[in-house]
Structures are given as C-alpha cells and as structure tokens.
C-alpha cells in the first residue's frame, strides 16, 4: 500500500524516513565538543553507517526532523514538546560514564501542535509538554546528533507511549498506526518537508558488564545467535520493502528479540510513510553491548519519480 502523501510535491511531505538508533556509545565514540567523556573511538561500522546516512540526507531538501524516541516514556497518552527552544545538559542515567551532553535545539512547535491536534481528533490521548525545566531524553538527543550534528534544523519530539506494556503489542500497533496517520496528515497540511526518525535498536538484550575500556571492540558482539537471526530477518524485510510483513511479525519480534520496537517508534514510522513497499537502504549494522542496531533510510523523496 502506498500513501499518496509521501513524496507528493507541492504539499507538505515526508521526504525520508530513518531508523536511527540512539545508543550513547556512538556519540561517546565521536568525541563531539558537546560531550564531556573522551573515547578512543569504537563502533566504527555504525558510525560509518551514520556518516552514509548523513551524506544521503544532504541531497534531500527538508525543513524539519520529526523524531519518536523510546526514552521519553509516557504512560498517560502521547506527548509532544511544546517549547520553541530547549537547551540543557543531558546525562544518561544508565551510561553516565559515556554521555554528558550539552544540547541546544529549536522545536517546530507549530508542527508539533498540528500533529498533536490531528492525533487528538483521531481519539488519541495527547498532551503538549510546556514545562521549561523539562530535560529532553538522551535517546532523542543521540539520534538527532548522529543524524544532523549541525543541529540547524528544527525538530518535533514525540514521546513513546507504553501501550505495549499496558495492553499488548497489538494495541501498541493500533495506536502507532493512528499516530502515524496523524503525523502524515499534519505534515501534509503544514506544507513542510519532513524527515522522520524512529530512534530504536532492533534486538535489545544487553550484556550486563562493561569493559574497563568501553570502546574495546574485541569484546563487542551480538548477545546471542537468536538475536542475530531476528536482526537479519527484519533488515532483509526492510531491504525488500516488506513493511506490512514487519508489522505483522512485530509482536513476535518484540517478544522474542526483546526488541526496542516495543516503544512504538518502528510501527509509527512505517505507518506514517504509508506502510511502504519500497525498499529501504541499509547504511550500517552493528552491535552495542550486545544489542542489534541498524541504520536504515527510506528515500521517500525518490518514490514519486519512479
């Protein structure tokens, strides 16, 4: 099924979709000036994957990055940042040794509210986040930094409603389908060109110990063979353009691979793009403390040309 909104010129449109995972290790390994800890590198395959994604997006004309991260976890509906400017320090509560990052971002509040309103019209529980003391979650920051380190595009930040925790993967998928449709509809009405980012890993079973040198790549590998098989299966489906099959297999993927797709971002982005049957581009795959991470791009802006 194709969503007619995708790639349609003259109206607002989704020009690209990205699977852009957020392990803080990647920012740590890049040593940007905003991050305090200093590394000797590491996770190069993934960082080169991000480099490839960035190069690809450089060829795309877009106005806004719209991101859904599993680390702004909300249980009472789906939330949207409603502050025009967010700047603070983000310290990862799980890996504070790796990620202490000064962020500074501009938010497209107009588009945030438009998606909020569309979702509300569709019956979803939604809320704008307007507390000026709020700190943006590290997942959002990592994915945004790795995708666009210049931080020169406004963003829309959407929370991860934990519908799967409360109900089931099926309910989560229904909610994300609705949110995806609301996102696409609001973007079309906005007249803006948007890049969507789903900020999640694939398989998500961690190692529970860390090396003295966290970037020691001699210790890095997938946590188990079963996780590897699931990661490869999902990547192959994305490369083959079989989005509907991914959504069909999502419950098993979330359960058996303990996938971070349980946060809804993956289902949301596929639905926002109209469950595309076009292939996605694999920019990179690698593991981070045992979890599986793929950097993918759906180049929606090209689809209208085919």
């Amino acid at each position, binding site marked *: 099924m194709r969503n007619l909104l995708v790639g349609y010129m003259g109206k607002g449109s989704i020009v690209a979709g990205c699977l852009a995972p957020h392990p803080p290790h990647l920012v740590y390994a890049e040593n940007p000036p905003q991050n305090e800890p200093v590394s000797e590198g590491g996770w190069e395959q993934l960082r080169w994957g991000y480099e490839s994604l960035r190069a690809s997006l450089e060829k795309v004309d877009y106005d806004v990055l719209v991101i859904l991260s599993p680390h702004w976890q909300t249980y009472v509906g789906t939330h949207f940042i409603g502050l025009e400017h967010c700047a603070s320090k983000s310290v990862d509560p799980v890996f*504070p040794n790796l990620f202490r990052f000064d962020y500074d971002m501009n938010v497209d509040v107009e588009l945030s509210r438009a998606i909020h309103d569309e979702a509300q019209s569709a019956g979803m529980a939604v809320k704008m986040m307007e507390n000026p003391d709020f700190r943006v979650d590290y997942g959002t920051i990592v994915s945004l930094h790795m995708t666009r380190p210049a931080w020169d595009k406004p963003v829309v930040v959407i929370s991860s409603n934990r519908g799967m925790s409360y109900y089931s993967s099926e309910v989560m998928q229904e909610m994300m389908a609705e949110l995806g449709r609301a996102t696409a509809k609001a973007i079309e009405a906005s007249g803006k060109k948007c890049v969507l980012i789903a900020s999640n890993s694939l398989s998500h079973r961690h190692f529970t110990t860390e090396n003295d040198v966290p970037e020691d790549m001699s210790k890095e590998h997938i946590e188990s063979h079963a996780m590897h098989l699931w990661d490869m299966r999902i990547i192959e489906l994305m490369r083959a353009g079989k989005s509907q099959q991914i959504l069909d297999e999502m419950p098993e993927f979330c359960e058996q691979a303990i996938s971070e797709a349980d946060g809804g971002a993956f289902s949301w982005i596929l639905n926002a793009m109209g469950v595309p049957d076009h292939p996605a581009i694999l920019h990179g795959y690698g593991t981070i403390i045992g979890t599986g991470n793929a950097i993918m791009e759906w180049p929606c802006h090209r689809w209208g040309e085919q």
Partner: protein
Amino acid sequence: MSGEIVMSLVVPPHPHPVLCPEKNPGWQAIRDAYDAAAAQIEESGADLIIIYSTLWPSIIGHQIQAQQHPEWVMVDADFHDLGSIPYRLSIDTKFAHAWNDANHARGLTSRTVDYDGFPVDVGSVVALELLNRGNRIPAVICSTNVYSNRAETTVLAKACLDVVKAQGKKAVAVSVMSLSNRMFTEPIQPEEDRIHSLKDDEWNQKMLELMADGRLEDVGQLSRTIHSQIRIKKVVAFKPMWWLSAMNGNRNDLTGEVLAYEEIHGAGAAVVALSPESCGTGDKEYDEDDVEFYGGDRGVLDNTEPTEDHGVALHEPTTKGNSFNTDLAPKPVGAYPHARREGDLLYLSGVGPRQPGDNSIPGGPIKDADGNPLNYDIKAQTRATIDNVARILEQAGSSLDNVIDVTSFLVDMDRDFAGYNEVWAETLGKVGPTRTTLAIQALPTPIAVELKVIAKA
C-alpha cells in the same frame, strides 16, 4: 562498631504529594503519611537514609549515587504539567563507595556515579524531599537493575548491611515503589482518581495486610506472583520487596504500620513503616535459598559454596576466644580464625588474594591443577591481598590506617618483589607499618603472596 536498620519504609514515587496534594484528598493523605514517616525517622535517631528506587533502572549491574550534592530541577516525564521540583541532596559518599566495594566483594557488578547534572529519578527526589526536609540526614540511592533476579537483589542488600554494620550506621531502608502500577492511560481530573481496578485493589490490600502483620519476607516471596497479577511490565520487574526483606534479615515478625493507602492516577500508593522490633507473632518461613554471594547469570542459587577449591579444602573459621571472622574475607584453609583481638591489638591470620565467595584468585593462580606454572599478575594479587586485609580490619572496627607491623611472604622473590613493592608503596606504604619480606617455597593454595598483619583495634 555495630550498625543496624532502625526502620524501613515503603513509599510511592509519584510527584503529586509534593506538587499538588491539595487537589485530591487521597494525595493529601499520602502527603500526611509521608510527614508522619518523616517524624518517625526523626525520632529513630537515624543517621542514614538508604533509597532503593524502582524508577532508576540500570543495566551494568547496580549503580549507586556518589555525588556529594546532586542538584538539578526534576520534571516528571508524564506529569510535567504539575510543575518542577528543584532539589539539592546530601549523599553519604563514604557509605556509597563502601557499598560499591562490598558489592564487589560479594560478586556483584556495581559502580558509583558522580556526575554534575545526573538525573536523579523522580521517585528518589520525591522520597527525599518529603522524608528528609532540609537534607538533615545524609542519604544513599541505589538503582534497580533491569536484569537482576532475586539472588542478585538479595546479595545487594546483604552487601549494604555489611557496610551499615561496619560503619556503625543507624539506617532507614526505603523502597520507593508503587503497589499496583497500572495508571489510567488518559488524563483524568483529580476528583476522578481511584485504584485502576478492583483486582488491583484486592491485591494491594493483601500486600498491606501482610506488611501490617510484619510479614515482609512473605511479601518478598510473593513478588513474582504480584508482578504477574498487578504490575505493568515497565522497564523493571517487581523487585523492591526482595531488597527490603533482605535488608531486614528476611523476617516475618517485624512490626508494621500502614500509614496510608490511596490511589495516584490509578496506581496503588502506600506509605508503610516497618520496625525491626518483633511483633511476637509469625515464624520465619524461608523456603528460598539464602544466597550470600552472587556468581553471575547462571547457577546463582547453588552458589553458596566456593566454586574454585584449588585442590585445598576450605574451613569455616574457628570462633574461640576473642576471634573475629567475616564473610567478606576468604575462607581459611585450616582451623583458625581470620583475626583475634588481644588487648588493643588485632592479630590477623595470614591473608592472601583469594576472593570471598568464589575463591577465585585475582591476577590468576601461579600454577594449574597439574602443577604447570602459569603467568600471573603479582600486582593484582597484592592489591587483592591488601583489600582482604582492609575488609577484615574494617569489619573488626579498625582499618588499614591502624596497621603497625606486616610480615610478607613471596613465593618468587626475584620475579615478584618489584611489583609487590609498587602496590605496597601505593597502599600500606602510605600508612607506614614496619615490614619484613620473606621468600618462601610455597603456600597452600596457588597464590604468590600472603601478609601477616598486626594492627591497632
């Protein structure tokens, strides 16, 4: 020194009792109960508040806050519209580091965190804001590990108790947790709040009945059932009662008092106080393994015995006279104690690098089971040896600073003296005891160094 848990608390993590108690009578009741618990802490003479927060998940073992004054403005991810909570906490950093060391001694992975801007979780901020006005009492905060099981959580508590006793603390143990944690998934008006379902309410009432009867270990043993019945599978499963029960010696005869039970956005919120004083009823029924050391993801329940014997039988330390023994030191290889106190002096038996719990040798053994020599790290062995000495002394109420005389034994003086001497200079060398170093042919286990220590008690 002899420390103790003077009281324990179960408290809810939500920000409502701090930010807007007046909006709902139930939220106000929780706030009042928090105030009552704070008064009980004052009366207890406590000098430390230990927080186990279910809202601070960790992956690399457990994390312990060790910044002296964490300071920021906390905003809840869901209830940001209620307002902000500025905080500046006082952490007992000496306790935090000692707890981390004690975790390692018991086989756990853990680390301290000391970073400006670290996001202290909402549960810890709420609990300390309401229980410890003005930060009068130093606190320590520990995470909940995403993957930990009962054995790991129990050992975490035992390591904490090791330090409470060693430092002579009068500590309050606090589990920050909801009972049932199913909230309404849509915004509600404050006056509409209620426990989300009758089933959740019934399970909450059962838990509270057990706690009011002082049957904390029974609640701990029901944790898996409670998790499956009334807990949403959020980031971590329901583990806080494992920790709190182990902090209280896995007892079922505490004296409990439910100070409040209400709803906060549908979740079960309770403030419960538990005194270590026996209520006189309820025998301990303890049908799970009482694990002392953590041995990793597999076989933990069978890991109460050392896993490496190095071909030498291990013994329980003897207890005659003024003997002093501790679980935090390796088991003896004969019938003798870890230390004896005579007058104002402590005489330690020979101490090597073997680890308490799994009997492993940091830096590796000097030979394999067939007697073939192995390449080992003398510095790692020497450090582990001095760490063992330090733990025995600290458990006996002394410390490395009180060491006055040491006799050192090396099995390969030519190979190892320099490395041993380097570690000595970094540690005991700064204390300045007299020292004699002897070359010997062998030690009973495949270790390269042993110390015979005399210290002031």
